[in-house]
C-alpha cells in the first residue's frame, strides 16, 4: 500500500509501469492469511471434525483457496482504489496502458500466483510435521508466492520495454497454467489423510 501511495504521486510513466508489476506481489502476500488458517486448523484437528460431519475434503481445499482469493481481492482492490484515487486527486490522469496492464497482467498474475502458492502450500504443509519459523512451509511460502511477480519484474526490466511485455504475458500464462495443473491434481496430491492432525 505504501508503494502504491508513493507511485501515485510520482509524475511520468513510473506509475503505469511499476504498479501493475508490484500489484501481484502485494496481493499474494495478503493471501497468505488463508494458509495460516489452514495450517492452524489442520494442526488443531478442525478438518477431522468437518470430514466426520460429512464435509468433503475437496470442499475444504477449495474453501481455503477461495479464502485466499477473497483476501487477495480485498488487498488488490484497496490498493488500486487508493492508488487510482490519489493519482486522480493530484491531477495526473490514468493512462489506458495502465488499465490494460492491470487487466492483462496484474489480475491474472495475482490470482494465478496466489492459487499456485496456496495450493502448493497446502500440499507442502500437509506433508510436513509442524515446524516453526522461516524453516517452516509457512515461512517459505511467501517467497514462493512473490517469486513469479518478482522474477517477472526483473526479467521485464532486463528485456526492455517491447520484449518485456511478452515476458510478462508469458509469465502470466505459465503461472496460471501451473496453478490449474496443481488444482487438477488436488485429489491425487491431497487425499483426506493429509488433512488430519498427527495421531
Amino acid at each position, binding site marked *: 500500500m505504501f508503494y502504491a501511495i508513493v507511485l501515485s504521486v510520482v509524475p511520468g510513466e513510473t506509475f503505469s509501469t511499476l504498479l501493475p508489476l508490484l500489484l501481484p506481489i502485494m496481493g499474494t502476500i495478503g493471501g497468505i492469511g488463508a494458509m495460516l*488458517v489452514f495450517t*492452524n*486448523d489442520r494442526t*488443531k*484437528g*478442525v478438518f*477431522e*471434525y*468437518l*470430514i*466426520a*460431519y*460429512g*464435509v468433503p475434503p475437496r470442499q475444504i481445499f477449495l474453501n481455503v483457496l477461495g479464502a485466499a482469493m477473497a483476501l487477495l481481492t480485498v488487498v488488490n482492490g484497496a490498493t488500486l482504489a487508493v492508488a487510482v484515487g490519489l493519482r486522480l486527486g493530484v491531477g495526473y490522469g490514468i493512462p489506458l496502458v495502465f488499465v490494460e496492464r492491470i487487466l492483462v497482467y496484474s489480475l491474472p498474475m495475482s490470482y494465478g500466483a496466489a492459487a499456485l502458492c496456496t495450493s502448493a502450500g497446502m500440499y507442502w504443509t500437509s506433508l510436513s510435521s509442524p515446524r516453526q519459523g522461516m524453516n517452516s512451509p509457512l515461512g517459505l511460502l511467501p517467497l514462493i508466492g512473490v517469486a513469479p511477480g518478482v522474477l517477472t519484474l526483473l526479467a521485464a526490466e532486463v528485456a526492455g520495454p517491447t520484449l518485456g511485455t511478452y515476458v510478462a504475458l508469458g509469465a502470466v500464462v505459465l503461472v496460471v497454467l501451473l496453478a490449474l495443473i496443481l488444482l487438477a491434481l488436488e485429489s491425487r496430491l491431497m*487425499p*483426506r*489423510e*493429509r488433512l*488430519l*492432525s498427527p*495421531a
Partner: protein
Amino acid sequence: MRSGALSSGPSSSSSTDGFRIACRGVSSGYLGSKVLEDISFTIDEPAIYVVLGPNGAGKTTLFRTLAGILRPSRGEVLIGGVEVDRQVSRDHLHYVSHMDGIPDGLRVREALEFYARVERAETLDVDRVLKMLEIEELADRYFSQLSAGQRKRVSIARVFLREREIYLLDEPTANLDPKLAREIREVILRLSQQKIVLYSSHNLFEAREIGRYVIAIRAGKLALFDRIENLRGSHFVVGIRVLNPEVPAALANFTRQGDYFLRELPGPDAVPALLHELDAQGVRVRELREMNNPLEELFT
C-alpha cells in the same frame, strides 16, 4: 475371552434400534501404510465399549475409520446397514477426537454456533449445552485463552448439540481434573443407557468403572472383545486392610504392601472362604479389594 468376529451380545430394545455398528474385515491406515488389519465386530447394544490398547496400537485410527474420516483399504464399516461414507450414516454419529478441533480465533459461543450450523442444530441448543456443561461464563472468551480442561469441556459440549445414536469418544477425559473427569464420566454413563458409546482411555480404573465391554487393539489387530465382567487376569490378588494388624500369625501367609496384606487366590470364588478363615482367626477386616486390574494385562 473372545476375539475375532464377534457380536457384543443379544440385541436389546432401545433407542439405538437399527443403528448397529458392523465392522467387517476392516483394514485401514494412512496413505498406503496399514495400521488396522482385519478388524471385525458388531455392536448393537446401548452401552459403553471401552477401546484399549498401547500407544500406537491403532485406537485413533479405529475411531477415525468408524467415523468415516478414513476409508478402509479393505472391508467395510456399516452403520444401520449403510456404509459409513454415506451422509445418512454420518448423521447417526458423534465423534470427539483427542484434538479439540476448535479454531483459536473463535470465542466459545461462536465455536459452538459454528458446529451447530455444521450439524444443522439450533442456536437455542448452544445455550442449552453451555448451561448443561456449566460453561456459560466461558461463552464470550476466546478458545485460545482457555485452560486445557476448559478446552476439553467445550470440545465435548459439541456432542450434546444434537442427539445421535452412536458416540465415538477418543480420550474424552484426558487432561481433565478428577472432579471434571468424574462429571464427564457421569454424563457419558447416563448417555450410554440409551446410546452406543465407544470410549478410549488410558485410565484402566476408569475403563473398568464405566465400561460394560472392552475392545482391545494390539498392533492393529482386534485382540479382545468381551464383557469386562468376563475378564479374568492370570493372577487374582486380593489385598486386605485390617483393624488389628497386630495378629501376625493369622497373616503369615500374606505379603505386605503398604497398609495392605496381599494374597493370591485361585479366583473371586475363593474370597468368601478367605474371609471366613480370617474371621475364624480373629482378624477384623476393614477392607478387601482386588489389587490387580485384569485390563492391565491387555497392555502387556
